[in-house]
């Protein structure tokens, strides 16, 4: 099995620019179960990295560790030059971290407080982080609504009155309110239907072009990965099996598991039977020491 976690991201810019997010030897153990093992990557400003893999491969655990919802068993996470491997002790440190890395979750239905409109939510986030007066906050709420493509009525509506796609736009606006350098998208478009998915992806692509924000895209959808990222990691059972440029990985997968993932995308001539055989051989390969 090829272990590529030591391989750094392509060397085009890595010498002169400091990464906004740098993960080294990240490991998470739940009881006796190793959820993530020895994961390392660098994320450069304005670039995006994808973490792909099937359900249960440890992708979401990586995301939760980066934002501090889960404590890493071992390894370091450095965002914007500051170490965040240990839980934040003080409120000021927590807020500071909130301005560095933000996250958009998968489920648009549980990720908004049912009793708070998008405008109120963003207003509250701004009040917690900054000393803006109410006029300034209203202006920023309007700007964020424009960026994510919500009209005045939608941003002031309660979540119950919004569709899944609209809620996810509110969640993106909330994440952007603190102007983070890194945005983690944890299957953020997976729960949306395809046309809405495309709209939200376009919004995300535009935001990146305008703000120079970096994405960590966690997805099992290879089409989404290709559209949004330059670099990618493939995870299987908590271990990175392939790491490199997205284009190379998707067009010329080296590892059996990546080939299997790639072949799992339904297309012309796609047969479940053939998939099963590939899955078996990939699992057999992974089981080998």
């Amino acid at each position: 099995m090829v272990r590529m976690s030591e391989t750094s991201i392509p060397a085009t810019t890595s010498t002169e620019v400091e990464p906004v997010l740098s993960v080294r030897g990240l490991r998470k153990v739940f009881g006796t179960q190793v959820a993530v093992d020895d994961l390392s990557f660098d994320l450069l400003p304005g670039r995006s990295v994808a973490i792909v893999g099937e359900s249960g491969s440890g992708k979401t655990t990586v995301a939760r560790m980066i934002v501090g919802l889960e404590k890493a068993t071992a390894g370091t996470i450095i965002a914007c030059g500051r170490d965040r491997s240990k839980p934040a002790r003080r409120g000021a440190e927590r807020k500071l971290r909130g301005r560095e890395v933000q996250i958009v979750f998968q489920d648009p239905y549980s990720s908004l407080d049912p009793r708070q409109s998008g405008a109120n939510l963003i207003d509250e986030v701004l009040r917690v982080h900054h000393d803006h007066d109410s006029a300034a906050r209203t202006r920023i709420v309007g700007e964020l609504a424009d960026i994510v493509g919500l009209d005045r009525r939608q941003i002031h509506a309660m979540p119950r009155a919004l569709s899944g796609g609209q809620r996810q736009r509110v969640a993106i606006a909330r994440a952007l309110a603190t102007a983070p350098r890194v945005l983690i998208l944890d299957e953020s478009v997976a729960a949306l239907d395809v046309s809405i998915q495309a709209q939200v992806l376009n919004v995300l692509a535009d935001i990146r072009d305008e703000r120079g924000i970096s994405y960590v895209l966690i997805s099992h959808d290879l089409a989404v990965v290709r559209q949004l990222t330059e670099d990618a990691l493939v995870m299987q059972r908590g271990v990175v099996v392939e790491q490199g440029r997205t284009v190379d990985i998707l067009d010329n997968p080296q590892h059996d598991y990546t080939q299997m993932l790639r072949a799992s995308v339904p297309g012309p001539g796609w047969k479940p039977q053939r998939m099963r055989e590939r899955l078996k051989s990939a699992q057999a390969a992974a089981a080998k020491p």
Partner: protein
Amino acid sequence: MSIEILDPVAEAEEAAPSRRRLRGLGVIGWVSIGVIVLALLLAIFGPIVRPFDPNLSDLSFANVGPYGSHLLGFDGQGRDVLSRLMEGARTTVLGAGFVALIAVVIGTTLAIATAWFGGKFDATVSAGIDVLFAFPGILLAVVAAAVFGPSLFSAGLALAIAYSPYVARVLRGAALKERSMAYIAALEVQGFGAWRLCARHLLPNISSLIVAQGTILFGFAMVDLAAISFLGLGVQSPQADWGVMVAEGKTGLLQGYPLVSLVAVLCIVAVVAAVSFLGERLDAGSRDVRR
């Protein structure tokens, strides 16, 4: 985009979630509200507008039935029953309200704290709550009366402490569920503190359950307080109280003059039943009002 158009019905319902909850009350719910409002008005204004002095005794009128302006007649000591009912509404209703309020405040605090911090804190407090469960409320009130002397305050406080585990147990589950929602995690990532998250986001989202719990407890508290007063460990005779009136009427009951005990019991039953029906409906409403 047809998919993104706002649903006008959903929006209208959004405008008034509380109104939607009230619509589901039905006839019994509205009658219950009427009874409760009447009881509250009596508790507030009863002692002011009562027709006669509730403690003015004239033994020549003992156990005389409804007579002239004395609409409910006299009790065994010749006191006006209607005036005593109106006077007693205050201690009975407000006493139960006080018990329910204290129990809900203690129970909610414990529930949110255990759900939020989890781990050892949760295990320790939950074990303490299990121990408290073992004590019946009345027993605790009797002990309190023995230690602090019989009074409405000590009995009420003992009941409130005895009830709080029930609130804590029910609300802890709801708070745990809310705690695991992604919006709480998202706000944690924003750097929000525990205090703000609990007070501004978690608490409001379990508030309908809190109200329902409080309403149900109010009914229990009224019955238990009346029982304690009946035993002579709560409100002290001759002060008017519905539980005291049931106790005072029991000699008349044996002599064939059941009116005093009967009207006092009817008042207790009416208010308790109304509160229970309403609590049940609010509880059911709180379940389908969300999402």
